[in-house]
């Protein structure tokens, strides 16, 4: 089933077309709409007639301090939190896979954070991190740090946001890596065990390389989704003080759904898309190189 047969077997279209058509139909119009609008000045409030402005929207965005600031904030939150999520998630998956004591309990509890709506997580976090009435404050005071302004000091606020992202999305990594571990053929490990290869080498020589493609996919999805972080920021800091903790999607949300400055939002969305594609391509290229080294 290689060569010509694989290339020309018509049945492959029957497999891929349903998914292809649904995604295309739902996403093509938003894309067309956003693209055309991004070259216009379109405002629903106050209702001004649309007018063509060329690349003005893009120029405005690229020359705005606020855009670069929010890109930097978003990238910081995403890269740091995804690194934590991957490392912790993988370790937990390994522990669960080897059936540590009580793993059936963990398996359920560990998953729960992922199933709570982000806006809820954000509200819960605001309770927990309340600088005066929250338990984290109690703990910090107990440890002798005093009342920390968790949400009104930019650096602290960003750390809080990173820990919330990590809390909510580590289960995502755990779940998928666990599934990956369970789909690995067990013969390989039997052989390794017979050869008396230590667990450390077994991980780096067998498990890690075999799960590398899955790891790449998992991290990639987390990166893409992470770039869209909005609810936690919106609820916890509102992007403040000033715009010190504003993320790209929050910026776009305010332009789009508060000010209904649709031209600007669309242009911003495309710039965002480009930013993500750039980061994504760099990441995938690096990942491919890594995979080749192991292959």
């Amino acid at each position, binding site marked *: 089933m290689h060569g010509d047969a694989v290339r020309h077997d018509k049945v492959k279209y029957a497999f891929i077309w349903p998914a292809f058509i649904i995604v295309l139909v739902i996403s093509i119009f938003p894309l067309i709409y956003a693209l055309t609008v991004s070259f216009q000045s379109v405002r629903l409030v106050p209702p001004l007639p649309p007018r063509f402005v060329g690349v003005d929207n893009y120029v405005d965005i690229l020359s705005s301090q606020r855009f670069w600031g929010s890109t930097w904030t978003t990238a910081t939150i995403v890269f740091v939190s995804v690194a934590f999520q991957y490392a912790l998630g993988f*370790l937990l998956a390994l522990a669960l896979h080897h059936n540590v004591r009580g793993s059936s309990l963990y398996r359920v509890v560990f998953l729960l954070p992922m199933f709570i709506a*982000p806006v809820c997580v954000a509200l819960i976090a605001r309770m927990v991190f309340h600088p005066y009435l929250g*338990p984290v404050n109690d703990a910090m005071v107990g440890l002798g740090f005093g009342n920390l302004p968790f949400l009104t000091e930019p650096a602290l606020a960003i750390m809080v946001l990173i820990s919330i992202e990590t809390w909510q999305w580590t289960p995502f990594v755990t779940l998928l890596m666990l*599934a990956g571990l369970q*789909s690995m053929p067990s013969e390989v490990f039997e052989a390794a065990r017979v050869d008396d290869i230590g667990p450390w080498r077994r991980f780096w020589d067998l498990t890690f390389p075999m799960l590398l493609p899955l790891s790449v996919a998992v991290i*990639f*999805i987390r990166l893409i989704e992470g770039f869209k972080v909005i609810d936690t920021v919106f609820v916890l800091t509102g992007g403040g003080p000033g715009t010190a903790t504003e993320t790209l999607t929050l910026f776009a*949300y305010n332009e789009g759904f508060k000010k209904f400055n649709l031209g600007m939002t*669309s242009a911003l969305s495309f710039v965002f898309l480009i930013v993500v594609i750039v980061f994504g391509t760099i990441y995938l290229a690096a990942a491919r190189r890594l995979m080749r080294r192991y292959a």
Partner: protein
Amino acid sequence: MMENRSLRIVGLVGCLVWLFFSFFPLYWVFVTAFKPPLAVSQGATYIPFVDFQPTVQAFRDAFSGIRGDFFGPIMASISISLVATVLSVFLGAMAAYALVRFEFRIRLASGLMFGVISIGGFVLLNGLFDIGVPYALLVVLVLALVVSIWMNRYGLPGPVLGNNDVTFWFVSQRMFPPIVSAFALFLLYAEIGRAGFPLLDSFFGMVLAYTAFGLPFAVWLMRDFFSTVPVEVEEAAQVDNIGRMRIFIQIVLPMSLPGLLATSMIVLAFIWNEFLFALLLTSGDWQTLPILLAGQQSSRGDEWWAISVAALIAIIPMVVIAAILGRMMRSGLLSGSIK
């Protein structure tokens, strides 16, 4: 085996630490749901009966309906997200299977042609000839597809895109920030509704949007799970002249069940919590839970006890599902029997 034992202990301690870390906020929600207002506003309280007198007032408020109707959104959320999850995982798995087992070759030029025809054609039809959005879109879509498929047959110059690029195309649909897409989809649904086929605030409209929403994850993840399935079994079946679809459903899917379940849970989690599309595409009948949850943060400040009750109600169906799927994923139960 000394090393193994110490590793086990490290693993256990790590799990316990993480258990505390992930469980504490949930515990906090749980106890807060029973707190009277003053037990919140006068400093942190931890243990019911010791720190404060618990009350079920917040639950009573929630079920009496003064904080919004919970029953409707729960049913809407469950039915929409289950159907959309099953659809997107199944269709996504099919596409992923095709991407693993077959080779696709798409010329970049024909892809670009699709873009040019669809965007240019739409602007032309809708902008200059004033044809309604749904009709213009339908015409361009069919035209652009036919032309680009036809052009793909007859050699075009330029680079050729392979399976990796097709997969990337699927995932790239998730890269576009949802703000504009949600608004544009709302416009499209409104236009189609005016043409006589209501999609706004309808089950079908929501399932369609969410299926498209979940498909990229399903394709991207299932591709990696399928790639670990050995091809030999399928080849044997093919020799016996069993159709592809049957091979897929009866052999391939069961063999990657852990992956299938994990993917379903991921997709379900995303759909269950989706907010922006739900906000714009629904109003009365099919409003989903996240809208109701967000509403608990009222204009007049945070009533933590009410927020906590709403969060608990929203998470219970997911606890059940996570428990069921978690059991099914217990190691050895699935993988051992197949391989």
